[in-house]
């Protein structure tokens, strides 16, 4: 099964993600270019971390308009699996494929460390079989998820919160670390699963995202 990883100008976790995918039996990483539009050869799409367009305006704001994102929106509308990590999560929010926005961290500084997150949904293509607690690294300056009361109420009611921080590092509302859409096929989160796929490099809690996909696509 082919998993496409989109490279935007300024993406810097795309190669890491492709390597993580290639570690998993049954998956093959396919590099996708932001100026292209063809998704016919892939079974799932990953929007990786980084600083697309330098994150200068708002994180993910410019990347959202790339040709590839128009295809990703259609792909998502067909109910097919899409995952956004860190900058990818920010892009998904800017593109309104996920609700809310990611604002600057509460204490205004970039933060790189391991966090514990609680897994609240295992019925998405990316979270099947995940343990209920994961330790994953974060590395972001803008991971403070915010939305208005009505949206928060709706997504909480609808069970769209997929991950919550055990100890909130950035001020995100309701400790939200990751979300899915109403259809559950689009998932976004701030922590980096692709950095936790090797016991020598800080654990393997990220592997489950990819093995989950193998099961779903099988």
């Amino acid at each position, binding site marked *: 099964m082919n998993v496409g990883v989109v490279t935007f100008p300024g993406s810097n976790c795309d190669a890491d993600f492709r390597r993580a995918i290639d570690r998993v039996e049954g998956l093959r990483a396919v590099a996708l270019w932001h100026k292209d539009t063809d998704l016919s050869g892939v079974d799932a799409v990953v929007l990786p*971390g980084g600083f697309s367009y330098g994150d200068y305006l708002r994180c993910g704001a410019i990347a959202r308009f790339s040709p590839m994102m128009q295809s990703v929106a259609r792909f998502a509308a067909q109910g097919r699996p899409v995952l956004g990590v860190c900058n990818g999560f920010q892009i998904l929010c800017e593109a309104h494929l996920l609700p809310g926005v990611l604002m600057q961290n509460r204490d205004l500084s970039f933060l790189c460390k391991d966090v514990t997150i609680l897994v609240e949904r295992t019925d998405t293509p990316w979270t099947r079989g995940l343990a209920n607690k994961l330790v994953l690294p974060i*590395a972001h300056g803008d991971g403070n998820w915010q939305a208005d009361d009505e949206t928060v109420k709706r997504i909480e009611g609808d069970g769209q919160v997929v991950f919550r921080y055990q100890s909130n590092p950035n001020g995100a509302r309701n400790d939200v670390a990751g979300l899915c859409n109403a259809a559950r096929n689009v998932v976004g989160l701030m922590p*980096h699963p692709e950095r936790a796929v090797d016991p020598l*490099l*800080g654990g393997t809690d990220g592997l489950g995202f990819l093995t989950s996909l193998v099961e779903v696509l099988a």
Partner: protein
Amino acid sequence: MITAEQLKKHKLTAGEYGHARDVLGREASLTELGVLSVMWSEHCSYKSSRKHLARLPTTGPRVVIGPGENAGVVDVGDGWCVCFKMESHNHPSFIEPRQGAATGVGGILRDVFTMGARPIAALNSLRFGRPEHPKTRHLVDGVVSGIGGYGNCFGVPTVGGEVVFDASYDGNCLVNAFVVGTMKRDAIFLGLATGIGNPVIYVGARTGRDGIHGATMASDEFSDKKAVERPTVQVGDPFQEKLLLEACLELMRSDAIVGIQDMGAAGLTSSSVEMAGRAGNGLLLELDKVPLREEGMTPYELLLSESQERMLIVAKQGREEDVRKIFDKWDLQAVVIGRVTDDGIWRCTWHGEEVCALPVPLLTDEAPKYDRPQARPDWQDAVQVLPTVTAGDASADLLALIGSPDHCSREWIWSRYDHQVGAATVIRPGSDAAVVRMHDTTKAIALTVDGNSRHVYLDPVQGGMGVIAEGARNLACVGAVAVGATDNLNFGNPERPAIMWQIANAIDGLAAGCRALDVPIVSGNVSLYNETDGNAILPTPTVAMVGLIEGELPAIGARLGRAGLEVAVIGALPTHGVGGSSWLARVHGLLRGKPPTVDLVAEKALHTALIKLVREGLVEVAHDSADGGVALALAEICLPLRSDASVGLVGELPGSGDRTARLFGEDHGRVVIAYDRHQAPAIDAVLAGIPRTVVGISGGSRLTLTDAGAPVIDVAIDALTARWRDAMPTYLAGDPWPV
């Protein structure tokens, strides 16, 4: 006619200019004077240091490219190389800490990827003034956010560094940035302008008036417009740099180019001149073709601009379109601005009119070189005398030390750096050396950066040797063999004989250390004139060292992690005393005495044995005992680090004689280890005569040391941890440094 006033503005002496005029057989134009002034600056020409740098060992079986190129290259086997360099951005960082530090990182990244290497890790070595100095907090905050902001966005993990605070840096902070990259041996690119007629292509960001020397700019002759106040600060754009990296690496795979070089200090001028110089050719540059960001720029300004994120490429004739296509893909511009010529002259035209015609050798090899007078400072003997200090309560001293600016936790800093992008960081910041795996190989590299300006000040030779010894020891602690180093020599004004003496002697120390420990210096940088109002910084050579780990990665920590381990000191026991120690500086406010002498033979034997101990899994913890002495090293292995819990230690202070010296003396050549006690015989077999002195057993929640049964240190690990962890965040939140 060039006037004395103009020479002064351009920091050239009458003798220097006279030489240029003789070679040219005419007066130089103002634009040419600007070019001469930057090419003959200390920064570009190394005129004061070149003679001394020649004493550094720069060759070895692994060295592929030594000093002289944009960065050094070392072969690590199986067709793979590592490429690295360190560079200072001291003055810009003092003026505008965020942008100054950011562009420092940007510059050193370009030095590495211009060689064809993909950067895989960054480190930095920082020096700030006293915490209580009104500028310090702002500088720390700005420099750290600049380094993080640039590296994080570019996508290189910043995995380590060092920070020291001392009054001598109050008016002159130091920011030395290091980057290492990897490449295949057959994919190395050089800054060469070969092939007569080949096109010279300008790529990357447009040129603005950034970084042009303020004094020269203000001169009315250079612009018909009224002089407006223009900041000369360079602003970095890590996003552009990331695109530039990808475009350059893609281009290098295409076989379309013969040479490439970043535009660093002195921008277009030095990059084009150096490329021509290395190839022995001339160049013709049509300056009006250079993409500009600002209106009304003159050839003078354009040649001296230090706008960031630009590179110069010499392509093969007829391949211009291939270059353009690749840069187009990455939304970057690529413009042909000139060609390689055979007359050895560096010519620039401006709308068809020649504005510069200077022989390349005049600007490179024939740049002035000086053997400046040296004299041992008249205060040197006096500072080497150790006054008598009365030892206080050792537990209180230890708490003071561990919460001091030089020894407290640096997590406030490195948590602002993405130290994991690249998904290869095996040992993260906070240990003796960082370890980063090389993708697609079974290798990893270990990285450390060190400097001890207190020791160098008190004795430049021993201090210089000590820096090398410490670097290699740090690498050995994670099981890595040192394969090369890069240095940054930060000193005061070399025209003062005392400073020149420090430079020459420190280089002798570095050279001796490198030779004895088989560590070639493959690249480096010199930063002189670091002084304010005649007060020089402490002499600060910093060294970044790269180690190699082949095959399976050893499981080694810098923290005790569990109870029941035997803790020992291996190597020589303290004999030296507290001269030059951190304890003397931090607890008594004194910079006095003789620093420890370095036994390089013993050092080498210790490193070899330690690497074996770590590789064979005989020890669980290895931690260098340098700064702060044995007491601080023992305290540090008890502290929590990330998921490691804190674990106490009960033991006996090793050695005999003066107790303070045994606690806080900073002798080289020793390391604290912890291991399962059943391994002791196997460990001794490897140590083969190197002393192993047992301290005690890990466990409990206190650090308790006795001396012949009498209590010496007894503190709760929680108390140590609180002092260590809270100091820097408290200070950076705006409060005074906690004591």
